[in-house]
């Protein structure tokens, strides 16, 4: 944080080293071509400079061989870059199973985080070392972007749709967290810090804020408060389908379409229930738009997810 003069960003995640390796490969290729082109230009323009004022250049002949060479070599190099880049890219957006899920809500101009154990924080994110962390993010207003340079991770945070990114921290410390998608007046102040802690310290930090309610418990309470429970009964006898084990399952809709019940689907069903009704049910569910905040929605998602894990457990 002090007045240092860094030339290279810190490396604090499993992805950082991999991204840097590819970066250095591209730097090497670039330096080679820059030296080649600058060198040739300098050499030619000195070696073949006009001396007497009467010389003329030699006639030009087309050389198909040369043209093919300098088309082919760059093309081959770009294929290497492409394949290598795709590998890292897919990795950055495919969270490993079992990652710890932190929910993020972005709004002009702050970041709100909810840990699975229920602790909430603003503009600061505490994470344990060595544990894959999946961020499930949504915006309340415009497009934002969560960027942690030390982790080499970045993902836009959209209104109306969840986006995810994941990382696994490898060094304890405090790192910059930026909003890198322009979002209005205080865009440059919409930042904070990521604190990577030893797992034991993290556990201590979690319990430090007094009694925390795990997210799925908060979600379960909302589920009761909003009256969802009256129709979505765990034994399937209600007017709506039972949500036990529903998350992640492929569902068939009244229209004949099928889709996978993911976070977006859960959110959509709460806000605009009549659009994608599960086959065999009536579109009678009322909308809860305006009655539940983005944080509340994330708690409901967490709750319904937890129902998927343990059959019929955790009834409030």
């Amino acid at each position, binding site marked *: 944080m002090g007045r240092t003069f860094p030339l290279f960003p810190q490396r604090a995640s499993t992805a950082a080293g991999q991204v840097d390796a590819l970066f250095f490969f591209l730097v090497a290729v670039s330096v080679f071509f820059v030296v080649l082109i600058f060198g040739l230009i300098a050499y030619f323009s000195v070696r073949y400079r006009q001396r007497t004022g009467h010389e003329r250049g030699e006639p030009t002949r087309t050389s198909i061989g040369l043209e093919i060479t300098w088309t082919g070599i760059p093309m081959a190099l770009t294929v290497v870059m492409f394949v290598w880049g795709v590998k890292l890219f897919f990795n950055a*957006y*495919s969270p490993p199973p079992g990652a710890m899920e932190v929910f993020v809500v972005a709004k002009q101009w702050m970041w709100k985080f909810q840990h699975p154990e229920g602790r909430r924080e603003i503009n600061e994110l505490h994470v344990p070392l060595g544990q894959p962390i999946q961020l499930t993010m949504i915006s309340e207003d415009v497009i934002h972007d969560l960027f942690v340079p030390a982790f080499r991770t970045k993902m836009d945070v959209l209104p109306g749709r969840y986006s*995810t990114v994941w990382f696994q921290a490898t060094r304890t410390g405090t790192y910059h967290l930026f909003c890198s998608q322009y979002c209005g007046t205080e865009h440059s102040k919409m930042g904070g810090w990521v604190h990577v802690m030893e797992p034991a310290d993290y556990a201590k930090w979690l319990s430090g804020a007094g009694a925390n309610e795990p997210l799925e418990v908060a979600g379960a309470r909302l589920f009761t408060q909003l009256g969802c429970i009256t129709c979505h009964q765990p034994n399937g006898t209600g007017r709506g389908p039972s949500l036990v084990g529903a998350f*992640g399952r492929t569902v068939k809709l009244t229209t004949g379409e099928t*889709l*996978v019940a*993911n976070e977006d689907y859960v959110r959509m069903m709460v806000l605009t229930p009549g659009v994608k009704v599960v086959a065999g049910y009536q579109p009678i569910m009322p909308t809860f738009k305006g009655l539940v905040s983005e944080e509340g929605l994330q708690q409901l998602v967490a709750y319904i997810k937890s129902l998927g894990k343990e059959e019929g457990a955790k009834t409030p």
Partner: protein
Amino acid sequence: MTTHIVPVRTYVAVFVALLVLLAATVAVNFVSLGELNVLAAMVIAVCKMCLVMLFFMHVRYSGRLIWIYVCIGFYWLAILIALTLGDVLTRAWLRP
């Protein structure tokens, strides 16, 4: 000038064909063909467009350059729609 004068008969024949196609597209709409309904509607629309362009707009009697510029707009439009749709339709693939 070397302009081609199309006989009135041709114009009228094209017009009748257009009206028949119009009737066809409305008629097909009253038959349930599932996904094929969209296809039928679009195929008929493209046929109508070709008739208008080839005869009313004299593309049939025009040089290669005109043909290129007739096609170019549609080609670019196809790029726009195909790549945009490519994004929308594959978004759900990664995260089920």
